[in-house]
């Protein structure tokens, strides 16, 4: 069995994501339950991140990996500050979480369970994919991809967001926090698309594995915030297929993507949120702002009671921004509220004078300078999707035709 498993793990690395996930699931389906569990116990490093392996086995494998990482750090002797912080994080990730269940007498009781990780990298910056809810029984699945500045140490805040989305979307919803990429840790890194481009194929493999786990009738929504919206975009360009896509506070996907259908193939719809004063969206640092795409649904972020401004309030409790995300995830599309405010109008609302267009112009200059630096220092590689892998931008292409200078346009054109 062990040799067969090793061969499987090696073979699927060379296969397309969907084929690989199917083969992995078929292999585990062919095993006796005891044998499958034994693999999770004895080969946690392989099973833990193996897309297509049953989620329950991956949860168990990653729990073991967490215990191992925590114990190694505990035994390592005097720890540096960052190691102490990591040890605290690992202890937190190993702390069981409470669920409200029903006992035999009909009373609501607290049940403690281990956290559910579908992937884990406890070393370095750290990565994790965590599931809230029951993935194999959910009718709605939301996969949240966070943006820059994230690591294992910031997982708690991102899990808060996933938890809010899950409750807003309602019963039968599972939320997945997908932080399985090297989130840029500073503005210089975030100016590059490298991390997003590398994450695209990883997201596709993960989503292919998810297909083997979820109910066939479940609907799946990808939600990307900030740099995470770029990761979602790269995943879609790499062939990820879901029911709905939500982008909040997006810096753009890439220069040649200026309408939803460029990266979200029908019948999947793109839903976008841009709050007043969101300087990241205004900058169009990575490409045209998805909030201006003529075929995207631009969701409202504000109502009379809760204000959502700047870049990080989209997941604010009771906000229209969060409520609209919940509506998308549960498929209540008729109740989505929309807006068509312009950048100039929004930035005026935020500070009294319009500053979004000057910011956009400054970002364009900075972007060109960055491109120049990159082209001087790196070779230009082009991926299968036609996107440069080193963070530089290819010639803009609209509907398959190269259009010099068409990548950046002022808001409202072509709408």
């Amino acid at each position, binding site marked *: 069995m062990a040799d067969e498993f090793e061969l499987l793990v090696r073979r699927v690395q060379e296969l397309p994501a969907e084929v690989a996930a199917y083969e992995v699931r078929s292999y585990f389906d062919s095993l006796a339950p005891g044998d499958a569990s034994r693999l999770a116990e004895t080969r946690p490093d392989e099973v833990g991140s193996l897309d297509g392996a049953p989620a329950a086995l991956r949860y168990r494998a990653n729990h073991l990996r967490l215990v191992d990482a925590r114990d190694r750090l505990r035994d390592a002797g005097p720890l540096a500050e960052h190691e102490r912080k990591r040890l605290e994080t690992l202890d*937190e990730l190993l702390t069981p*979480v*409470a*669920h*409200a269940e*029903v006992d035999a007498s*009909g*009373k*609501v*009781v*607290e049940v403690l369970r281990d956290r559910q990780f579908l992937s884990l990298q406890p070393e370095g910056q750290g990565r994790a994919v965590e599931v809230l809810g029951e993935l194999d029984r959910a009718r709605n699945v939301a996969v949240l991809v*966070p*943006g*820059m*500045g*994230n*690591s294992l*140490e*910031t997982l*708690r*805040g*991102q*899990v*808060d967001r996933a*938890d*809010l989305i899950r*409750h*807003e979307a*309602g*019963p*039968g919803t599972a939320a997945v926090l997908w932080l399985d990429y090297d*989130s840029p840790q500073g503005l210089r890194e*975030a100016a590059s698309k490298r991390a997003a481009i590398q994450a695209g194929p990883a997201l596709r493999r993960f989503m292919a594995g998810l297909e083997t786990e979820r109910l066939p009738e479940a609907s799946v929504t990808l939600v990307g*915030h*900030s*740099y995470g919206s770029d990761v979602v975009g790269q995943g879609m360009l790499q062939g990820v297929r879901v029911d709905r896509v939500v982008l909040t506070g997006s810096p753009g996907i890439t220069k040649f993507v200026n309408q939803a259908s460029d990266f979200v193939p029908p019948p999947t719809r793109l839903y976008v949120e841009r709050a007043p004063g969101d300087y*990241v969206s205004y900058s169009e640092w990575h490409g045209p702002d998805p909030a201006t795409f003529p075929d995207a649904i631009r969701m409202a972020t504000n109502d009379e*009671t*809760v204000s959502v401004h700047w*870049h*990080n*309030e989209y997941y*604010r*409790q*009771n906000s229209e921004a969060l409520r609209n995300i*919940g509506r998308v995830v*549960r498929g*209540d599309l*008729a*109740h989505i509220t929309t807006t068509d405010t312009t950048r100039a109008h929004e930035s005026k609302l935020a500070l009294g004078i319009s500053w979004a267009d000057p910011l956009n112009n400054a970002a364009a200059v900075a972007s060109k300078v960055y491109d120049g630096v990159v082209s001087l220092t790196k070779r230009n590689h082009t991926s299968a999707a036609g996107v440069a892998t080193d963070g530089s931008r290819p010639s803009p292409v609209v509907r398959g035709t190269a259009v010099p200078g068409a990548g950046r346009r002022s808001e409202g054109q072509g709408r």
Partner: protein
Amino acid sequence: MTLTEAREVLRTELLAVAAAVVPGQTPVVTHDPGPVNPGALFDGRGPATICSITVETGEPTAQPDPDAAVSAAAAALADRGWTTSVATEDGHHRVSASRDGYAIAVHAWPTDWRITFTGDTPAIG
């Protein structure tokens, strides 16, 4: 007030309101991980300034009555000084409540016995 104190206030309020809505059950705190940074500039960076808490309760042996649940929750919150509004759309019964920078949402559904109370502290620090 410190963030630790604000967290305790929020937890107490959520548990009290949940107990008022379903008196015969003991509510469960299902999410209370501690302080986080809501993203002062970008995601995750900077000091931790808010806490989010989720509490769940319900009457598992009875037919769900989300309308009654949110009415009771809104009344209990109002009694405790919260400003509330109730909304219903496509089976989603909801209370939005605020008080002194705290925010609470109550969710109830016809398809689930669980009534969920999620809350955020104000940003402190």
